[in-house]
């Protein structure tokens, strides 16, 4: 175990490189969650479409993602995608994480869409609005609002999961920590430092998500 003074010394010395890595971690997370929301919405709509084959596709996707470890998915997608079309590293990593997040987000959205009162769809239809128009204008806005807290939680999970992008050469927090650690033969200090970065980020995000949850709960009254 490193001494406290050593730990703080290194913590301060490395702040620039870690802050840069933190930025990449956040970028990876934001991008992969945003793409994940698009993917998730897509598969959630397929799942509730009542069209058997689309439901099946959605089920298979969720099963594949939930049935395998993220690290396996990351390796397969990173090297697999490369074989098909070459996109820059950042986008390959983001896409791999997004496909993972997308499955969980599709479950969240499916839940909140189905949680919107059936009367809303009927009201829309009875006013002459089409199914798609009602979905877009009436159902989805309400579903997304309710999805905000669970999406916030998924964001926190995604942030932690992005650490696995280290293994496909993304210089995010964890990769920087282990690289510096092994270069300086001082793994433990750097691991503890990176743990602090994650803790601060997660604590901050948790605080925001809780606030959001309370705010939504109040305005729903």
């Amino acid at each position: 175990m490193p001494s406290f003074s050593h730990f703080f010394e290194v913590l301060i010395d490395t702040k620039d490189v870690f802050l840069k890595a933190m930025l990449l971690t956040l970028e990876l997370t934001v991008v992969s969650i945003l793409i994940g929301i698009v993917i998730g919405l897509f598969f959630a709509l397929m799942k509730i479409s009542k069209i058997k084959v689309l439901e099946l596709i959605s089920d298979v996707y969720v099963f594949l993602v939930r049935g395998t470890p993220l690290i396996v998915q990351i390796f397969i997608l990173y090297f697999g995608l490369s074989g098909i079309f070459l996109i820059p590293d950042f986008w390959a990593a983001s896409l791999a994480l997004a496909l993972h997040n997308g499955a969980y987000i599709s479950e969240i959205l499916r839940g909140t869409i189905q949680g919107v009162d059936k009367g809303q769809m009927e009201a829309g239809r009875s006013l002459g609005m089409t199914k798609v128009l009602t979905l877009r204008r009436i159902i989805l806005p309400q579903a997304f609002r309710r999805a905000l807290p669970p999406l916030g939680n998924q964001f926190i999970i995604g942030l932690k999961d992005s650490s696995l992008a280290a293994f496909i050469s993304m210089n995010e927090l964890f990769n920087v920590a282990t690289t510096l650690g092994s270069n300086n033969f001082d793994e433990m200090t750097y691991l503890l430092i990176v743990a602090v970065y994650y803790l601060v980020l997660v604590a901050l995000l948790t605080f925001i998500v809780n606030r959001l949850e309370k705010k939504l709960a109040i305005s729903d009254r």
Partner: protein
Amino acid sequence: MEAKEMIKVNQLNKSFGELHVLKNIDMTVYESDVVCLIGSSGSGKSTLLRCLNFLERKDSGSIIIEGKEVDPSNDDLNKIREKVGMVFQHFNLFPHKTVLENIIEAPVMVKGVDKKVATSKAKELLEKVGLEDKADVFPNKLSGGQKQRVAIARALAMEPDIMLFDEPTSALDPELVGEVLTTMKELANEGMTMVVVTHEMGFAREVADWIVYMNDGEIIERGDPEQFFEHPKEERTQEFLKTTMLK
């Protein structure tokens, strides 16, 4: 001159699985008629109303709206629904939109009415239902009676020829029932064609042109209010009126 047939239903049947909910329903609603549909719970009143608006698909029989038989698999149901407004027991206002946005949503998005035009029309309607000061408020700030009046204004904004009401007052606290019934009465007086499912016998007696009594998926009896309430012909109707009036 004979009045125009707004709705004509012939031999309508509808089942949910094993459950035969509507049995050979025949019914005609003429222009400016107010028809009150009454009957005990589960008798099929809501289902009939929903069939008239094609929210529920009929199994057999025909539904003729303003002289034209509607084929749900071919016709553009959305176009027909524009003609037939509906008000629900639980209001079903859009909670993420203000009162005004609730009202202009369909005219603007479906009919393509200019937003300004729709807004001024909506304000007129709000005035009509006595809620001109609530335009920019969200539904969760309204009382049940106010919600239902907004729902009526929302339906009217599409300028329907027919209005369907499914127990519009039964989710309301008793002291709020009156304001909604008043609004409906005004609408009836203006000559709107209305089909109203209700348990408010006072309203039915005063406003309805015809009463239709349903039991177990069948229309048992129909008649003008005077005759229906004073001299019901069928035994089951007499039974029903006895228990209902007691409450």
